[in-house]
C-alpha cells in the first residue's frame, strides 16, 4: 500500500559549502545587516543572531518574519540554510521550490559578496532538505516514503534530468528533524540551479 502523501510545510533547505575550513563567519554580520537595511528580499528581515561561540551550532542567523537565513554549522556541516517559518499556499512542490530558490538566491548573493573574498561557495552537489515540524513530518522511514513522490520530481527539475541520489539516513537520531540528502552526479553552479528551478 502506498504511503499517504504529506503536504510539506516549513521546509528547510541547506546548501553544503565547498572548503568550509576557509570560510570566516565574521563578515556575515555586516553583510546580513546590509541585507536588512537594503531590504534585499521580499521577505521581511528583522535581526541577526550571532552564535559563532557555539560549536557545531547555527552559526550566524539572519532572522526574518517569514523565514530565517543562516550560515549554519549544525552537525559540523557548514552550509547556507533557509528555514521557512510561515506557512505557504500551494502544494509540496511549491514549498520545496520556494525554499530551494530562497536558499540559492541567498547563496548567490554571498558568493558574489566582495567582503567574503570568494571563499564562501556552494559545493554544487549536496543539498539537505528538512521539514521543521515534527507533526507534519516525523523523522521516520514512513515519512520518507510519503514525501519521496514529491522529492523526486523536485530533484529532477533542480538537477535538470542529471542523475542524482536521494538518501534518507535511517540510522540517524530519530529525535532529529526529518531530512533527506540530495546529491547530483555532477556539480552545478548556483545560477544554473536557479535557472533550472525557473524553467
Amino acid at each position, binding site marked *: 500500500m502506498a504511503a499517504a502523501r504529506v503536504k510539506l510545510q516549513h521546509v528547510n533547505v541547506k546548501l553544503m559549502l565547498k572548503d568550509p575550513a576557509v570560510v570566516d563567519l565574521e563578515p556575515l554580520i555586516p553583510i546580513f545587516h546590509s541585507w*536588512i537595511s537594503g531590504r534585499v528580499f521580499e521577505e521581511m528581515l528583522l535581526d541577526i*543572531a550571532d552564535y559563532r*561561540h557555539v560549536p557545531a551550532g547555527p552559526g550566524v542567523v539572519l*532572522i526574518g518574519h517569514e523565514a530565517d537565513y543562516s550560515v549554519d554549522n549544525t552537525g559540523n556541516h557548514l552550509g547556507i540554510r533557509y528555514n521557512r517559518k510561515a506557512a505557504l499556499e500551494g502544494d509540496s512542490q511549491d514549498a520545496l521550490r520556494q525554499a530551494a530558490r530562497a536558499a540559492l538566491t541567498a547563496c548567490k548573493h554571498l558568493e558574489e559578496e566582495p567582503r567574503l573574498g570568494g571563499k564562501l561557495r556552494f559545493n554544487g552537489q549536496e543539498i539537505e532538505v528538512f521539514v521543521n515540524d*515534527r*507533526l*507534519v513530518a516525523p523523522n521516520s522511514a514512513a515519512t520518507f516514503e510519503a514525501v519521496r513522490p514529491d522529492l523526486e520530481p523536485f530533484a529532477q527539475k533542480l538537477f535538470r534530468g542529471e542523475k542524482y541520489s536521494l538518501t534518507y539516513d535511517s540510522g540517524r537520531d530519530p529525535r532529529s528533524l526529518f531530512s533527506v540528502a540530495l546529491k547530483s552526479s555532477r556539480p552545478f553552479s548556483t545560477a544554473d540551479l536557479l535557472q533550472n528551478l525557473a524553467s
Partner: protein
Amino acid sequence: MKVSNSQWAAQLSGKMPEALAREIDVFETEIALRKQGKLDERLFAETRLRRGTYGQRYDNGQRHDGQKVQEMKYPSGELTKGPNTMWDAPGMQRIKIPGGGLNAEQLETMADLAEEYSDGIAHVTTRQDFQLHYIHIDDTPSLMRRLAAAGITTREACGNSVRNVTACPYAGVCPDETFDVTPYSRALSRFLLGHPDCQNFGRKFKPALSGCAQHACGLTSLHDVGYVAKRRTENGAEKIGFEMYVGGGLGAVPYMAKLFDSFVPPEEILPLTQAIARVFARLGEKKNRSRARIKFLIQDLGIEKFKELVLEERKILPFDPRWTEYITVALREQEAPLNPGGEWPSAASDAFKRWLKSNTRAQKQKGYVTATVALPLGDITSTQLRALADIVRRFTRETIRTTVEQNFALRWISQSDLPALYEALEAAKLGAPGAGSIVDIVACPGTDTCKLGISSSRGLAAELLKQLAEKSFEMDEAVENLHIKISGCFNSCGQHHVADLGFYGVSRKVAGYAVPHFQVVLGGEWEHNAGSYGLPVAAIPSKNIPQVVTRLTERYVSNRTNGETFKEFVKRIGKAELKTVLDDLARPPANDRSFFSDWGDPREYSLEDLGTGECAGEVVSSVEFDLAAAERELFEAQLAFEKGQIDKAGDGAYRSMVHAAKALVKIGYSTVSDNPDEIVSEFRTRYYDTQKFFDPFAGGKFAQYLFAAHEKSKEPRTPDSTRYLIDESQLFIDAAHACYNRLGTAVGV
C-alpha cells in the same frame, strides 16, 4: 505560524496536567480575543507576561539600521500584543525550571521546541530558567502544551508574580551543605505557583534557597526572600531549619538582603513566605514601579516593623495542610546514583586533566562527583540538548540541574565513569573546561534581544571569551578563578554587582557622537551567597573593555599580597588608584571609528545623535563638562565612603546629582543659580513634568532619585542609605547623559 498549531491540543490531550491544559486553553482564547479587538492590549500584555511570553528588541516595529530608523511593516498591521508591541514581532519565551531540576525527556522537549519555534538555541539564564528567542506569539500555546506534557510550566515566569524558585544545584551532594534543600525548594515552588495571595503584587518576587552560607550557589543575599540551611541544638536535640533573609535584590540599586530570622523551622517556611506575600501585596508600592520591589517596602518600614507585620499576618493565616504534608514524603524521595561509586581516574590527556580540575567537584558521597557542563554564554543547541539527554540517561538516574552561572550540573557521576563521561561530552562539543573560572563569563541578552539593553553584553562576553580562552593555558591561578559578569544595562540581569570584574552597559557622548560604554564595577563578592556588592569605578568605551580586563588582572597578579583575593586587592589599592590605571582607556582614541559601534554589531551606535550641525571632535558643550564634573564629584564621594566618611560621601553624592541636574537645566536657563532648591525645582518643571528626562523604559525613576535625595538632604546619613545614594547618583548621572544624548537630536545642543 506553524501549520501544526491547531493539532497539538488534541495530540497531547490527556498527557498534560489538567490545570495546565486548562490554563493554556484560556491563554489561547485570550489570544483570539485580542486578535478580535475584544481584549485590551494592556490587559493582554500582563496576561502573556504572566505566562513568560515577553517582548523583544524592535518589537515596536522600528529598527535603527545604522543610518536611520526603518519601519517594519508586519502582516498583522496595527494589531498589538501590548502597548507599542507589534503582534508579529518575535518575542522571547521564558520557561521556569524550579531549582533548575530537569529530566532527560524535558531536555529533549526543550531541544524540539528550540528547533521548531526558535532558532535552534536554548539559553540558560542566571535564575536557572530557559529562554527561547524569536518566538511568534501564535506559536506559544503549542509550545506551552508541549512543555506541559513534559511537566513544565511557563506560568508566572514573568509579570508581577513569584518567579522561579531557585536553589543550590549541588543540594544533596555538596560536602559543605548543612542539609539538602531540594524538597523545600520544590514544595515552596509548588505552593506559591498560582497562589491567590501572590496575584496582587506591584512587582516581581524572587525566592531562593541555599544549603550553606559560604558558597555562592543559592545567591540568597540578592533575593526577595532567601533561606539558608542551618542546624542547631535545642534542649539537647539537633534540629534543622533555615536562616531567613528578606529584601535583597540587584536591579539598578542593589540591596543586600536583611536577616529576618536566624532560625525558622522547616514547617514554617511556606506559611511565613505566604505571610510575606500578603504583606507585600497589601503594602507594597503599586503605582511607582521603580519603588515597587519588596526591598523598598522593607527599607521604608524598617526590618523590625516589617517583621512585626509579617508575624501578625502569620498568626491569622488559615491553616493549610500543604505547609507540612510534603515534608515526610519529600524526605523519602532522595536522589540516588545510577552506578556504584568508583575510583578517581588516572587521567590520560592534558585536556581531560584540565577538565577534571575545573569541571568536577567532589560530592559528600564517596566515589561520586558532580560534573559541570560549561555552556558558552549559556547557549546550547538542540543537537547538544539531545546528546545531553542521552548522557543523563547513561550516567545518572535521569536528572540534571541548571545553575545560576548558566551551566548544567550533572550529579551522582561515579568517578570511574568520568573518562566515558568526558568522551561523551566531548563528542557533543560540551566538554569545554573552565567551569566557574574567568572564561565562564555570565552575560544577560543585552542589546542582542532585550528591549532594555544599552550595550552589547553578549558581544563583549563573546569577545572576552575568545581572548581569555587563548590565554587561559598561561594564566595565573589567582586570575583563572576570577568571575566576570556583564549586564547590558543597569538592571543587573547579568549580576555584575557580585562579580570580581562586573560591567554594565551605559552610553556616553564623545565629540558629539554616542559611544557604547560599560561601567566597570569592581570588587563584588560571588561567594557567601553573593556576600557583597561592587561599586562603579569608571565608564569605559566598550571596545576598550578587554584592555581593562588585561590591565586589572595584570596589576592584581603583580601587586597582590600572599593569598589576597581580588576583592581585598581592590579594597586595599582603592578606587582612586584603580581609576588611574584605567584613565587613558576612558576615551576612545582619535580617528578610530570602530569605537562608535558595539561588539558584534557593526551598525553605528545610537545614530539619532548624529544630528546636523554637529561635527566630531569640535563641539564639547558646557553640558558635557558639567556632567563630567558631576561624575568627578561622585567619584570623590565613593572614595570618602571607602574611608568610612559617611557624611562626606552622602553629601558629595547628593551634590553630584544636583550638579548633573543643573547641567541639564542650564540648556534652557543658563543663569540658574547654585541653590539646590532652585535647581531641583527647575529640573522638575523642565525635565520631569515634561517627561524629557524619562528613560524609555524606566520612566521617571531616576529623576525620583534626585527628588528623594533632595528631600532627605538634611537627614542623618547611615552607611546603608549612603551606599544606596551613591548608586542612585551614578544612575541619575547616567540618565542625565542619556537625556542629553536624546536632546542632541531634538534641539541640536
